[in-house]
């Protein structure tokens, strides 16, 4: 009996496995990766699932090759994904830039572990958040999503494929070791819409492969479709040909940034918990946001009205949501497993309207609710 692509129903599944199933449900039939903890379960599940679906799994010789193969497959017309953790994410940075410059839709998963360097390979971290934003050279704009549960790992992987096609960009799923390895209930719906690729609407002789539609995204002609296009990481004109001057470069880079930046309503996702009457807001994401709920309960029990703004979209940073938040609360606590990365963005977005306090540690474990509570108390005292 042929294998089922969409495993509709209720499962007890890890975040890593849910990412693999989310990719399949979204129509991904190409996955290339290199083994690394804590990503391995994604690759192992897809090595088992994809061949049964007529899809393609390949374990490449390193992460540089893994992302390069995913980009090649995207230009071959497939929905493609790669997955890694910090050290491999570092190796992918150059070709992340190639994906941006060539407007190649694909999904890259980073199951974060404690770093720098080899760090703590099997223990949690959230230290790659700035690398996700600025890790490749040059100025660019990508979208990064942060699941906080296996269910959300499934849902956001599906969403990542849709956004990759909509904007023709690499979309990052920035999860972490705890969400990746945690087993929870995952409900897979009966049907999952597969995001269409925007195809040329004119014959090959009239087609300009990098001439954008009004929303700044050009239609994409893949290999073998008769358009005979040139694709390069060099600065290029609408024909795709190298254009080695400052004006062409500025025009191209601005478009690549603006095509994402001008449409925040299409990708900005966050969740508010108990914020209606909150005096202190915790801002967090991924596993740290879930731990923060415990700290908020302790604060409420101690008479401090605290709530949570959980960031689901980390990049582009939801400036407007933070700015509004700063007008509603008296102080903000940022909880993340690094020594202050997204907290810098929070400080920038709130522009000094309220104090921002970070509850950090470098990685290897999640926060305790007590640590979050202490952070809330401290900001609460500052506000008095």
């Amino acid at each position, binding site marked *: 009996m042929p294998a089922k692509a969409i495993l509709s129903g209720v499962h007890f599944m890890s975040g890593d496995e849910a990412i693999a199933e989310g990719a399949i449900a979204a129509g991904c039939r190409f996955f290339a990766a290199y083994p690394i903890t804590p990503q391995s379960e994604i690759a192992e599940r897809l090595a088992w699932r994809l061949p049964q679906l007529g*899809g393609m799994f390949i374990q490449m010789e390193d992460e540089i090759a893994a992302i390069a193969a995913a980009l*090649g497959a995207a230009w071959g017309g497939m929905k493609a994904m790669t997955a890694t953790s910090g050290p491999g994410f570092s190796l992918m940075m150059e070709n992340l830039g190639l994906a941006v410059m060539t407007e190649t839709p694909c999904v890259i998963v980073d199951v974060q572990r404690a770093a720098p360097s080899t760090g703590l390979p099997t223990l949690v971290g959230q230290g790659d958040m700035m690398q996700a934003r600025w890790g490749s050279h040059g100025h660019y704009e990508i979208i990064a999503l942060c699941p906080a549960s296996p269910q959300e790992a499934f849902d956001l992987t599906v969403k990542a494929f849709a956004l990759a096609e909509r904007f023709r960009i690499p979309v990052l799923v920035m999860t972490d070791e705890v969400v990746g390895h945690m087993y929870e209930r995952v409900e897979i719906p009966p049907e999952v819409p597969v995001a269409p690729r925007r195809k040329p609407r004119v014959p090959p002789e009239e087609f300009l492969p990098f001439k954008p539609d009004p929303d700044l995204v050009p239609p994409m002609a893949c290999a073998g479709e008769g358009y005979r296009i040139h694709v390069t990481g060099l600065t290029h004109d609408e024909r795709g040909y190298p254009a080695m001057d400052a004006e062409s470069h500025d025009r191209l880079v601005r478009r690549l940034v603006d095509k994402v930046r001008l449409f925040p309503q299409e990708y900005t996702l966050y969740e508010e918990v108990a914020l209606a009457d909150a005096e202190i807001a915790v801002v967090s994401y991924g596993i740290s946001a879930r731990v923060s709920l415990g700290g908020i309960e302790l604060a409420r029990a101690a008479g401090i009205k605290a709530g949570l703004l959980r960031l689901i979209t980390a990049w582009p940073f939801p400036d407007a949501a933070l700015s509004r938040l700063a007008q509603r609360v008296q102080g903000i606590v940022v909880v993340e497993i690094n020594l202050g990365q997204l907290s810098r963005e929070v400080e920038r977005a709130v522009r000094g309207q309220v104090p921002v306090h970070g509850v950090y540690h470098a990685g290897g474990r999640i926060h305790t609710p007590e640590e979050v509570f202490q952070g809330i108390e401290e900001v609460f005292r500052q506000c008095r």
Partner: protein
Amino acid sequence: MPVKTVRTAPELVEGARHPLEKWLRTERLPHIWCSGCGLGTAFSALLYALEELGWDPDSVAVVSGIGCSGRVPGYLRVDTYHTTHGRPIPFATGLKLAKPDLHVIVFSGDGDLFAIGGNHFIHAARRNMDMAVICVNNFNYGMTGGQVGPTTPVGGRTTTTPFGNFEHPFNLVHLAASAGATYVARCTTLDGRRLAKAYVEALSHKGFTFVEVLAPCPTNYGRRNRIGEGLDELRYYREHTVIRHGADPKEADIAPGKPILVGKFVDIQKPTYLELYQAKVRELGGEG
């Protein structure tokens, strides 16, 4: 060797057209390569090979990395991908696996494919990944100004070996053969016809195939090493190359004072990556 060639400006013929224009992005000409460079010959031999194979241009995709050779696909009127330095082979791997009906060709240089991209080359060869890899070997990094490369002969003078090269170079023929390539040939740009024939064989052979093309780089290598201009280097090839089909790849090293072996070194059949993968997919009931 003293400089012998006297350069004269070529005459432009009004209305002249390239006989294989259908494979060219004529609007992108003139190309960027220096006079005397071997890339023109290495490139036009590819046009003749494609024409001889009679393939539909829409069934051909050419992938390159970075460098002078990496600019080749930009002049070809097929789907072409100019990727990152050293990464054309893994990009081409994804492209081929996503669209198995495509004829996928990697065209790049010695530094791109064997220094920064060496790991990808050996692994694609090991897998017998279905693609043809053409490497133009000009013994240095031409685009960046003539630095030492993984094929620079011992003693070769480059901008980063001002006292001569102390490193042992790769024997690319031997490397490709030992890593698992199922077709391996070496030609020079002196003999465009033999080169086109090697391309035809490599492109039509299933699995991972490899053609090394020895090519002059007068601007950055020839002049610094007293080889002279492009034509002088071709003369050097005429005097120092020996055609020896079926020679042991180990004997194909390029060393001062030693004849350079050219010809076809490997021509074998073994199951390709795609054949093995697709057979398993069919067995599992996937579409394959």
